[in-house]
């Protein structure tokens, strides 16, 4: 192992841990106003949907159809069946697209 790698990994770890505890330390002992509460209520969904935004921006029809099927499954099924349907649909559609000469 070389020292530059170790320093880089150490610095990454420190920065990441600061982001994990920063919001907690800042709000821990504060009284929350109505607006802060509204913001904190909306924040989780905003973060989650931003993480998966690139999936919605995909130009690949197989991926978009698989995402649509996943969305449909997510509205009526629990976590594990939704994950299995999502993986199976994406895998099958990509193979189908591959064999029919699509992208």
């Amino acid at each position: 192992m070389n020292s530059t790698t170790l320093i880089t990994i150490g610095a990454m770890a420190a920065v990441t841990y600061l982001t994990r505890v920063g919001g907690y330390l800042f709000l821990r002992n504060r009284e929350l106003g109505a607006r802060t509460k509204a913001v904190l209520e909306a924040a989780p969904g905003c973060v989650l949907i931003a993480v998966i935004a690139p999936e919605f921006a995909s130009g690949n029809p197989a991926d978009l159809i698989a995402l649509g099927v996943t969305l449909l499954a997510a509205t009526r099924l629990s976590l594990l069946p939704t994950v299995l349907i999502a993986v199976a649909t994406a895998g099958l559609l990509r193979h189908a697209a591959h064999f029919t000469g699509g992208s």
Partner: protein
Amino acid sequence: MQTCDIAAPHTPAIATKTHTASEFQRGVVASIPVMVGFIPFALVLGTNAMQKGFATPEVPLMTGLNFGGGSEFAAVELWGSPPVILAIVAITFLVNSRHLIMGAALAPHLRHLPKWKALPALFLMCDESWAIGLADTQHRKSSGLFPAFSLPYYLGLSLCLYATWVIFTAAGAFLGPRLGDIRSYGFDMAFPAVFLVLLRGMWKGLRPALPWLVSLAVAITTYRLIPGAWYLPAGAAAGVAFACWNTKSPS
């Protein structure tokens, strides 16, 4: 293993112990669907890191100390010999800045915990453990349970995910290029699946979900226009800013 119905008079200590164990176990079970998504990504990350010149033990060192998949993929992408420390640390902060919002959203539920328990627990906070933990907190709150945030449940969930991530990134580093392109099997769709189910759990109607749509729209636009990980903080910040502005105006 203890079962709940052996002895009639439970001492409080034993009752608490049994309760903690069953809550931990409930967290372990909750982590299983997420593992389906974690394992293939961990293998790919380990493989990619080796191609960028990591030594095998450095891979679990990074994933075990940093424990943030998105930032690790970005770091490996930027990795050179020697690595440019400042650029890698900056992108790590950029990708992980969403943790600030996540920790803030969790803070009101952690008030019953002393700092020495909360701070190590937050080390294990990733998108999935945070979102599932928060969903469980809301569920327990509406069932009248106290504390709404169950620390053993969260630990069962997040420790399993942590172990999965570190072990399988190390496995990826060992197995290396013998693994094919896992994307073609569709495993990457596991993440949107997990997140969409979590979003459904948070759904309270169209109006409260408007900030999500703002976040999604801004994230997609940013993703199309600016290369790199900017879409993530840009989308999340725009959604949160919209929520802030939306409450100020009378409804």
